[in-house]
């Protein structure tokens, strides 16, 4: 009842000078409006920024096989042949934090088209999932190869922009045949431009082809020449009978050396060079790493205490950039918000001080008819808060409308933020209390005799 009466008195007092009340509120309206608009536009920009950094590969994990060693000699990362395409499928199937995963086979060879040739940085054998992992699904031309191409080891490929330029020079590469190590590949598509990566490598200098094709037709990489520690080299004519070296059971009866020499069979080495996996978001990277570790240790039958035969790298640098950028944006927005609210608050204080001076006689009169100091204090404080809250409400509408306008007219990304709105309400009430207190306190300390005599 009492609060209601005071609020109504405040409204009545404010209504007596509507123009001044409106101008006063304008400071808060603009302040809160700016805060809301900044928060919403800022949140949208932040999300867009996060997305573009994520497209640089911030969510990507690289799983490499571990280090082989023999007799105390280490052969360097990636020298064991522990990763298989089935590992990749298992990761995709069993890790909820992983969005997509692609097996990778690398080769380096000369590429020839007509009378031109080029040695690309990377010839990657992979699956169509790679494009999704790298956020590269928009091709400039043509189409990507598909899963069937991978299963059949079809000789198809996608070219990076650099290769398309070097080999075709303006001509459309779609449907043309290029040769890699004398094996003809039909070009099905051209990747969009990605530019250099953070290390300065040209990411467009690449050919993507089904991993099976690269593995079995182009790359000579096998257990025999990658892993020098294994003794397969001594098994001179090669074992040939194992379809997959990792599986222990033999599909065919053991052949004698003579039989093997007479019927050479290609060994389908099914190890891959690395796996690229994309986590759902930057926040889920660490849980993705845990899940992958668990899946791979189980699949590779590693006992507790045995070291991993693989290692997982995340793009720590990019992730750090991402979190720094996010923090920076948040702080920037907060600073702008604070400044505009302080400006609005000073405006309120200014007008309230003017109002107190102007209404000195009224204050004196109210004291003469029995208002105590705290009644006056409350009255002016409530007036300031009413002004601020009204201004806050109008500011929310203005700010939200402004950010919607920005969204439709400028096509900026905008995100509605309910937390900003709640914050604005509390902050505008807070500003009213803080900046309304001094004038109200000043009013409450007036001497009624002096105040009544004030001209």
């Amino acid at each position: 009842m009492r609060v209601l009466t005071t609020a109504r008195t405040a409204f009545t007092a404010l209504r007596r000078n509507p123009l001044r009340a409106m101008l006063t509120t304008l400071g808060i309206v603009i302040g809160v409006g700016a805060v809301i608009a900044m928060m919403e536009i800022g949140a949208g920009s932040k999300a867009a920024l996060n997305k573009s950094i994520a497209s640089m590969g911030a969510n990507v994990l690289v799983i490499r096989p571990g280090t082989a060693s023999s007799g105390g000699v280490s052969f360097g990362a990636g020298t064991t042949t522990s990763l298989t395409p089935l590992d990749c499928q298992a990761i995709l199937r069993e890790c909820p934090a992983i969005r997509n995963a692609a097996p990778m086979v690398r080769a380096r060879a000369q590429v020839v088209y007509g009378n031109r040739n080029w040695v690309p940085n990377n010839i990657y054998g992979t699956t169509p999932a790679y494009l999704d992992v790298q956020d590269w699904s928009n091709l400039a031309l043509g189409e990507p190869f598909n899963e069937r191409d991978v299963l059949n080891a079809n000789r198809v490929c996608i070219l990076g922009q650099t290769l398309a330029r070097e080999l075709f020079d303006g001509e459309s590469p779609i449907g043309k045949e290029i040769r890699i190590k004398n094996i003809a590949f039909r070009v099905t598509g051209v990747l969009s431009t990605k530019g250099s990566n953070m290390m300065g490598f040209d990411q467009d200098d690449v050919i993507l082809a089904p991993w099976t094709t690269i593995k079995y037709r182009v790359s000579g990489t096998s257990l025999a020449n990658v892993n020098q520690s294994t003794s397969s080299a001594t098994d001179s004519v090669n074992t040939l009978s194992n379809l997959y070296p990792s599986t222990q059971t033999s599909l065919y009866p053991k052949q004698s050396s003579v039989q093997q020499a007479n019927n050479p069979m290609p060994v389908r080495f099914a190890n891959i060079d690395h796996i690229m996996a994309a986590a759902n978001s930057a926040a889920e990277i660490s849980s993705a790493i845990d899940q992958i570790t668990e899946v791979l240790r189980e699949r590779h039958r590693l006992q507790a205490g045995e070291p991993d035969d693989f290692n997982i790298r995340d793009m720590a640098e990019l992730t750090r950039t991402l979190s720094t950028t996010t923090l920076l944006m948040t702080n920037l927005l907060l600073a702008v918000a604070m400044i505009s609210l302080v400006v609005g608050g000073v405006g309120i204080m200014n007008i309230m001080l003017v109002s107190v001076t102007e209404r000195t006689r009224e204050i004196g009169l109210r004291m003469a008819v029995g208002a105590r100091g705290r009644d006056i204090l409350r009255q002016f404080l409530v007036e300031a808060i009413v002004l601020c809250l009204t201004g806050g409400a109008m500011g929310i509408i203005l700010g939200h409308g402004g950010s919607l306008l920005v969204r439709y007219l400028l096509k900026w990304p905008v995100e509605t933020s309910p937390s900003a709105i709640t914050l604005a309400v509390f902050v505008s009430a807070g500003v009213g209390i803080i900046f309304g207190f001094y004038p109200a306190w000043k009013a409450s300390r007036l001497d009624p005799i002096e105040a009544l005599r004030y001209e």
Partner: protein
Amino acid sequence: MELIKLHGIEKTYQMGDISVPVLKGISLTIQQGELVALTGSSGSGKSTLMNILGCLDRPSAGEYWLDGVATSQLSTDERALLRNRKLGFVFQSFNLLARTSALENVAMPLSYTAEHLSDGEIKKRATEMLGRVGLADRLNHHPSQLSGGQQQRVAIARALINHPPVLFADEPTGNLDSRTSEEVLQMFERLNREDGITIIMVTHDPKVAAHARQIIRMDDGLIQNSAPASFPAQQPPGEPS
């Protein structure tokens, strides 16, 4: 019955190093139901005495009993409550709230002590009070739409809304022409006569003072004489002169 009793009231203002005595020991008694005029030349201390009587200011020395309460010991808040309950003020410049209806102006003092009253009761009391000062048809007029006399009557209604036993009027007719002054003074007389409200007027106009039944003349911080008016108005009811 003694409503107001002063004993040895002194008031000294401190102007830097110099102390300026304004009231130099005033003792006086005012009975309930009196109509008193406080007169004197300017600088005689009548306004200061009025402020002390109205509990707006504290004396430097001396005792003041209002309706049996020793006010010198009261805190600021207690004095505010006392003003609200027992005293009404009418000022020379009316002091109405601008752009506020007569009704709201009259109801204003109730917002400080009368939380128990509902909106309807507050409105009823204010309407009734405005009716008593003859402004029943001007409830929603703003001060700028009222004449000076009507404004002063609104101010009187406001002063009486809490049914105080004492009404202070500081130069109540100072801003009014003679005809309206006469109306206002007659209203004071009527309130004093019919409702038994003690009225204390500060004025330097002998014609205004002539309406009072008792005139207290002040000079240089002292009461020169306290005498019944030379041509007294009507007798208060139930009190032989």
